[in-house]
């Protein structure tokens, strides 16, 4: 059963950069902004490299920054969720006045 303990560093960075479209090189420190419709919606901190896996506390914190539930986060990292799917989740939260 996949859990936040089994998130691979490489998979997470790939998902954040390619699907979410974050660019960690532009932000200060290791942070990147997620913008939608011309507004900043989220701010995500890149994980530190600590072996092959992302430590569970860090994974949980990044999941919160992405405004995703655990299952959604694991789907984003492990492939089923596309960039468009992620955008749809964010749009729903914008409609709810959350982002």
């Amino acid at each position, binding site marked *: *059963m996949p*859990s*936040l*303990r089994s998130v691979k560093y490489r998979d997470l960075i790939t998902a954040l950069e390619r699907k979410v479209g974050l660019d960690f090189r532009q*932000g*200060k*420190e290791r*942070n990147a*902004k997620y*913008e*939608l419709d*011309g*507004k*900043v*919606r*989220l*701010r995500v*901190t890149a*994980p*530190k490299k*600590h072996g092959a896996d992302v*430590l*569970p*506390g*860090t994974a*949980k*914190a990044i999941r*919160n*920054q992405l405004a995703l539930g655990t299952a959604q986060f694991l789907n984003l990292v492990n492939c089923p969720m596309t960039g468009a799917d992620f955008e749809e989740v964010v749009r729903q939260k*914008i409609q709810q*006045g*959350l*982002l």
Partner: protein
Amino acid sequence: MRLLPSREQSNALRQHFHVEDDDICSHVVGESVPWPRLPIEDFAPLRQTELPELLEAGFGNIIQQMDSLSKEMEALQQRLAEVEEALGAQPRCRQAVLYDLGTRKYELRQPLAVQLEEYDEEAVARIPELDVFASADTDSDALGLIKREVVGLYEELAATPVERLGERPLAWLRLLERVIQVAEPA
């Protein structure tokens, strides 16, 4: 355990070997059991055909039950491993408070609450209202690092035109403007 054939089985044996009642001679303690008087080699077909059935009747159930128990044990072991993993993933949580931001540039007007989560391999300091976190080997390191994160977030938001901030980043900015002020020069 019954080692000798039942009356029905004896009847079946008599029919199978075409023997009459006169040929039957065996006595067993407490029960008279008819038995065909035949050379031992004539029992070979019996061993091949009926013995496995007799054994299956006696032990088949037990074997099935053991198989079933073994599968249940395996499922329980798997579940136990999952529960242990889930418990291990649960952090030890406590609240901490920041009284400064670790810089002479800014001061805190009021203390800022931080959630500290200690995992086996890391300590994470989080401020859920600001969506910032810092991860380190120890909780004091994490607390030191999250001060930088708060300053970084504040400066980033302050430098962004308000109309470009979504609801959540705007809420972060409002909160930070309430608690942070530029320090007076000494």
